[in-house]
């Protein structure tokens, strides 16, 4: 396994991380269950206790690992295992949570060393349930929240997404890839 071929999905409980990984993974995703030693297929409506894991196969035997962190805030222990190296971070924020700015602050700071080296992309979920704040509001929040951060991409993509919608998740990941190299996929 090449450790650098991974994308980490993070964000608060219920933001849609598990849904997003399921939407694009080539294999049924594996969620680490707290009780069982075996891999259990994640079912809808469950909170992820430890991690989600999905794979994108690239045809030439190489693959990209998709990891989802647990939403609960106190498990930064795991994130250290997850975030050594990688392609980037997808931060999903839930628009129905009481204080999304606080969530944004928490997760960007929890990953502050990581996002100094790799790009971050913000996906705002559940805007169908609660349209405000909108992406412009989030851009303002980001300016406040990130004052003491050194982000590789200080002007990150901020998209409304539905974690269950494949097109939305594809756009998040593609925006992440273009943030690494805007020239990707053009003629050499």
């Amino acid at each position, binding site marked *: 396994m090449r450790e*650098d071929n991974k994308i980490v999905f993070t964000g608060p409980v219920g933001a849609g991380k598990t849904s997003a990984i399921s939407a694009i993974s080539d294999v049924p995703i594996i969620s680490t269950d707290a009780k069982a030693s075996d891999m259990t297929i994640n079912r809808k409506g469950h909170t992820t206790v430890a991690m989600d894991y999905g794979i994108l196969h690239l045809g030439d035997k190489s693959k990209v690992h998709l990891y989802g962190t647990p939403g609960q805030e106190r*498990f*930064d222990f795991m994130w250290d295992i997850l975030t050594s190296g990688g392609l980037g971070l997808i931060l999903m924020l839930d628009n129905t949570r009481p204080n999304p700015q606080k969530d944004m602050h928490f997760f960007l700071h929890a990953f502050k060393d990581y996002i100094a080296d*790799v790009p971050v992309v913000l996906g705002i979920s559940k805007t169908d349930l609660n349209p405000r704040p909108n*992406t412009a509001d989030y851009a303002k929040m980001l300016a406040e929240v990130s004052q003491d951060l050194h982000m590789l991409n200080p002007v990150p993509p901020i998209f409304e997404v539905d974690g269950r919608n494949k097109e939305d998740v594809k756009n998040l990941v593609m925006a992440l890839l273009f943030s690494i190299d*805007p020239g990707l996929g053009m003629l050499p």
Partner: protein
Amino acid sequence: MTDKAQIAGTPSILVRGIGLDIRKEAVFRMAFRMNRKANYSLLEADDHQVPDVAIADLDSPDGLAEADKFRKENPGIPLLATTVVPNSFPQFVTLTKPIRMETLFPALEQLLRPSPMTRELPLQQPAEPVEQVQNTAAAATPAKLSTSVQQPPPAREKPSFDPNQIEFFDPEQGLLALVQRAIRDQIPVGIVDRRNGRLLWRILPEQGKVDASVSMEEAQAIFREGEENLVLRDGASFADNDSVHSMTVTEYLWQIHAIAADGRLSKKIPLNRPVKLRRWPNLTRLYPLPEALRLAAFLARSPASPALTIRMLQVQPQALLNFLAAADALQLLEYSPASGVASEPAIPSSTLAEAQRPSPAKRGFLGRLLAKIAGL
């Protein structure tokens, strides 16, 4: 994971967890699955097999006491103690948190190697972890990587872009200006094709929405037939057989400006002075314009003039100019030289393009990933 299959036949290295809460256990299980060099397996609490090695969390409530007890009862079994304060526990072999794959497995291997184990362990020399760490470091800093790329940049085909051929349009004249004013002054208006009296759009600024009876493609065709055919009219209503859909004012401004631009450069935007993207358009909820993700990523990263952007990204000029028109309508662009944007760097564009890129191998990989995602 196919990696795992390669070692499926090898015996498990049994690991006893000490003082690990259920979530830490879960993470170790995941880490063990991700490690392909050896078959580590964390024992369940009620599994009384003798472990090969133990991992303790000294910072958990009972971690220290349990670790002491385990050592007394199992003096021959190596124990790796994890803690945030290694200096406080000189009696243990410690691994300082945060724990990383790159340090966890070499530490376990080291502990297991000298111990008088009764069975053959499928361990290899620790050459690979070093390599892994290097890969990781390199991957984490794609931008810096390129400084070590020694090859000269590959010859690039010159994009077919002639600045003299660029056409202009003025978003502050004609229909677009009227639409902007109606939105600013919160006046509901309809836009009608005067040739047949058909209501195309009804703009309802107070509700922040626009009702439309035409698709983006139809609108494009109508614009090409002549913008002068379109007039503002209040009180017009949709025909019964029109299929009307709604969009936000933001969505409308984005697409109507791209349609009106139709491959031309807005007169407001300088061709040869830097343009910066203040923030990304909400692209998942806007009409998809060709190359919008790429262009947004490029202009968000550092200011570049439209001319330089076309040369460096080798995009179709029309794609860039439509994107700029749409983004400018949403006030996402910053381009007045007076606003403090640095002037264009005097580096030859090809050098600049190469300097910002990951290594060719990495680009190849990312390109395949991009194609894969796009095709999902």
